[in-house]
């Protein structure tokens, strides 16, 4: 027998309004497709067939003990780390704090933060941010993952984007202002 243990991330969703839930899934299909949904509340057969058709994995009514409000940031530490050096290919920066990256993040470099991330120069490397907020300027080469979702394809190159969580939904919006404070 071969036993393996995995730690997986799930989206816990309380279903109280079927139409609202279906609209939410429709809208966030790209984000949800690669994840497991943990559904709570009233899961109707319509919802189940809908998710099966969309090929989104789900499970329902498993008791979880984690308190919902505090689920964010259990590994995050408070504080800001300022990175004033260019991140070169092959270098990996990992932090549990918020990160302010002033210089370029080159192709082949990796940044991982549990906190928020602001990157002021061009990003060509890989970013994994599990914070609530991100501000960065992607390029064609960059790979950007926010709270487990690959959002690289959702953005155009060479424009600053604000990416944030709003009630567990990822909002990606171009930042039109001029960033002048660094």
């Amino acid at each position, binding site marked *: 027998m071969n036993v393996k243990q995995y730690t997986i991330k799930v989206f816990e969703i309380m279903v109280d309004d079927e139409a609202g839930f279906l609209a939410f899934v429709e809208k966030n299909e790209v984000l949800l497709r690669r994840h497991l949904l943990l559904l709570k509340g009233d899961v109707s057969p319509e919802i189940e067939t809908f998710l099966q058709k969309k090929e989104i994995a789900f499970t329902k009514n498993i008791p979880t003990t984690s308190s919902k409000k505090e689920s964010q940031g259990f590994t995050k530490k408070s504080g800001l780390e300022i990175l004033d050096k260019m991140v070169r290919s092959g270098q990996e920066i990992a932090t549990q704090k918020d990160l302010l990256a002033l210089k370029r993040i080159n192709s*082949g470099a990796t940044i991982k933060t549990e906190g928020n991330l602001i990157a002021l120069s061009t990003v060509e490397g890989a970013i994994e941010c599990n914070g609530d907020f991100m501000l960065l300027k992607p390029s064609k080469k960059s790979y950007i993952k926010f709270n487990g979702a690959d959002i690289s394809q959702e953005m155009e190159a060479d424009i600053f984007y604000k990416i944030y969580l709003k009630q567990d939904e990822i909002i990606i919006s171009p930042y039109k202002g001029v960033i002048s404070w660094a």
Partner: protein
Amino acid sequence: MGIVFAVISGKGGVGKTTTSANLAIGTAMEGKKTVVVDFDIGQRNLDMILGLENRVVYDITHIMDGEANLSQALIKDKKNENLYFLAASQTKDKSVLERDKVKHLIDDLKENFDYIFLDSPAGIEGGFEHTIHYADNVIVVVNPEVSSIRDADRVIGLVDAKSHKAKAGETVGKFLLINRIDPELIEKNEMIATDDILDILSVTLLGKVPEDKRVIDASNTGKPVILHKESEAGKAYRRISKRLCGEDVPFEDVENAPSKGIMGKIKGLFK
């Protein structure tokens, strides 16, 4: 005390050995006592490019093993009395290099020479680490294309992390040499422009060398391009050598094709 330059690139085939050979000749022509060491153990090439292959008796591994001393292994160039060469072994592999012995060798060379060029192997293993470990400066050779630039970025990061000087809190001089710039491809926007390369790598530009078909023939005949008076690449290496010797030589615009001659101009008219 001599100055040690490691010539590195990460990616292979971008012109490290050609660069080492030409810059060594160039600085020797400027009157500096120069030695160029082939650190590509097991894949000896520099001797051929310098046209000295028939003079190699002892190589770097013989020094490491104590079978020969430095003065026996150093090969003096016949054309230029300031230029010396230390060959790599063609038979042994990189494992013969030991850090203490490499340090000892480089210290010896620093006593006896003004300029020491270390021709690094491609990649980021053994031989590469030895060349950057005791270097005062590194010359990073790139071609204007993405994979070469990314590999250069990687090795610059390793220089910052691994060199003896960087560990002691001092900074290692990092210089960029852009090799094989093809004006035609730059014009067509198929090569990465110099400004973009400098932006990505953020190191000091040392020089730009244009693509020159004579380089291949020069390697085959053992007469490096710097000795060809009419070669554009040779002229570029000449300028870079002068810069290395402290002369303030302005950058030439090698990205733009030299005047195409009358036929080229006429063709241009009917484009």
